[in-house]
């Protein structure tokens, strides 16, 4: 994959002409948290910032480059740093080449090759796959940002109805991808979380050698079998958007990679989301995702079902925005050969306010509370139930 990315970057920069753009973003946080040791540090705490990470923290340092070349080609690369003591510091969240032919008779195709986000989230609408409503993402889209990336080729076909007097636009999209075989390991071994940290292409999740998620590599091809996803969306004017996606990484659950000490996790899910916006500045988002993941080591067959739902309401007026979201999430270890099962249940409540000073300066405050019952915490000698709270103040400069 390194070769693919290096090739994409080299090709893009070589061919890029004058019309390119560089985005820079500095996002700092002031944090107060009573969270258990975070999953980032070998624990099963659900918060990005645990009680050991109060005070001033890096939210995100980001640099993104986008270049157009030729008439219809665009290339981009998005690089971020989330924490100074991460295993990899500056690393790539997304990089791809996009082919954008002109619409013909109301239809338009798009092709992306590289590493990019799946069209699942209805929250992530801002540059760098950022959530403009709240600092932390829903459980569903936190997971999408952690374990899923289309590393391959994507094709989408859009019917531009509103350009032809219709109230609707609609489209279908599909992709064939590799390097997504570990997808599922986090949701099975750790469970759901709510935060804004996106896994990078060469990232390791958690500290190596520590805890239930010991420096996991998440983007790796293990079994040589490509996966696919297919989705559809429909929009009513600029008011309502509905998205559906089916994902199947077609992993061979018996395949094992000693290099990263992980199996290929056979993961399949369906996601359905709806976003409604009104002329009064209200936004409502509802999303549901459910699926299962399995591995088949020599000791037996392990299967987890997982599902999550959230409802978000947001109201914007001028530079102000207030938002609130409720999340419900769970995993069920439905088949195991080494009981007790590793499973969980939980809810999240997030509320926030944000203010845009201008096009560059943005600040936000967010309260996040997660109540969870995680069976695996007992392996760490902790009570399975936890009630974790986190208050963040964010100041962000972007240009």
């Amino acid at each position, binding site marked *: 994959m390194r070769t693919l990315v290096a090739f994409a970057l080299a090709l893009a920069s070589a061919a890029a002409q004058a019309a390119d753009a560089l985005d820079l973003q500095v996002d700092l946080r002031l944090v107060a948290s009573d969270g258990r040791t975070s999953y980032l540090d070998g624990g099963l705490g659900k918060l990005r910032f645990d009680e050991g990470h109060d005070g001033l923290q890096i939210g995100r340092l980001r640099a993104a480059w986008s270049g157009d070349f030729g008439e219809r080609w665009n290339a981009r690369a998005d690089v971020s740093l989330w924490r100074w003591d991460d295993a990899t510091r500056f690393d790539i969240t997304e990089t791809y080449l996009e082919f954008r032919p002109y619409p013909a008779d109301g239809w338009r195709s798009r092709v992306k090759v590289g590493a990019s986000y799946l069209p699942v989230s209805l929250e992530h609408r801002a540059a760098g796959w950022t959530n403009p409503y709240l600092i932390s993402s829903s459980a569903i889209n936190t997971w999408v940002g952690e374990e899923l990336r289309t590393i391959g080729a994507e094709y989408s076909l859009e019917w531009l109805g509103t350009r032809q007097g219709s109230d609707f636009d609609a489209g279908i999209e599909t992709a064939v991808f590799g390097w997504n075989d570990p997808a599922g390991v986090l949701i099975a071994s750790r469970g759901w979380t709510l935060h804004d940290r996106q896994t990078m292409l060469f990232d390791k999740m958690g500290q190596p050698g520590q805890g239930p998620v010991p420096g996991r590599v998440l983007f790796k091809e293990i079994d040589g079998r490509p996966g696919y996803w297919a989705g559809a969306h429909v929009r009513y*004017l600029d008011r309502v958007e509905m998205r559906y996606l089916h994902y199947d990484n077609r992993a061979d659950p018996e395949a094992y990679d000693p290099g990263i000490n992980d199996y290929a996790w056979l993961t399949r899910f369906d996601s359905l989301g709806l976003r409604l916006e009104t002329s009064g500045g209200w936004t409502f988002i509802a999303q549901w995702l459910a699926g299962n993941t399995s591995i088949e080591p020599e000791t037996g067959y392990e299967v987890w079902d997982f599902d999550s739902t959230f409802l978000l309401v947001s109201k914007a007026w001028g530079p102000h925005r207030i938002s609130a979201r409720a999340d419900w999430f769970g995993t069920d270890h439905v088949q195991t050969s080494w009981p007790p099962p590793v499973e969980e249940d939980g809810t999240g409540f997030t509320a926030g306010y944000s203010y845009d000073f201008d096009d560059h300066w943005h600040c936000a405050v967010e309260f996040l509370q997660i109540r969870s019952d995680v069976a695996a915490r007992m392996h760490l000698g902790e009570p399975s139930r936890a009630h974790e709270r986190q208050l963040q103040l964010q100041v962000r400069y972007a240009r």
Partner: protein
Amino acid sequence: MPRGSEERVGNLRPRAKVWAGFRRAGLASGALATLALGAGSACAAASLTVMVTRSDGTPVPGAVVLLHGPPGSRPAPPATYVVDQVNLTFTPDLTVVPVGSSVKFPNSDAVSHQVYSFSPARRFQLPLYRGTPYAPVKFDQAGIVTLGCNIHDDMIAYLVVTDAEWSGLTEADGTWAVANLPAGEFRVEVWHPRMREVATTLEKHLAIADATAGKLDVHLMRPLRPEPLGHKPHSWSDY
């Protein structure tokens, strides 16, 4: 004012010495039009005021009114128009241009745009650009041209290319007025980008005598589409 059903539209009795014929397109659309002519001023020229209202009676500003005159009317001369791109928005987002006119599409934004139309009246595309690198685009065929940007799907604008001798947009009070008309038979077309009537444009024939002040009321029978929510913050993107 008769409103509500096509039967009543059909029973309309135009007042004064006018002939008010409804084209089937206008009728089928469900929109109503009534024409009233009053005594004109001393001068021989006639005038016409077109008023476009919603189904609830409130005025519709920004509706396109095209007035085709009797044979011999002087055509509107072609000219060069400008549709700029500022803050990821076409400005203006609705322009009426006489057939044969040219339109410049400068890009005043810092980001590139890729302007296209696949409307039958004029298909064209301007490859990715900033500034004003391209010659104006000529529009030789009457019709509605929908403009888009292939990079920013929220950008949309309309050109109404017309061979009508008189044209314009309704004001805030829903009216569009024209004076110094010759006597004769006219055809009026009304269109709005957010109009949901069945026919693409509403049409009506009318005759205007010397020294009359005509008034044409056009009632849309279906609600307009809601106004766009307005452009999103610059940092927003499609994922």
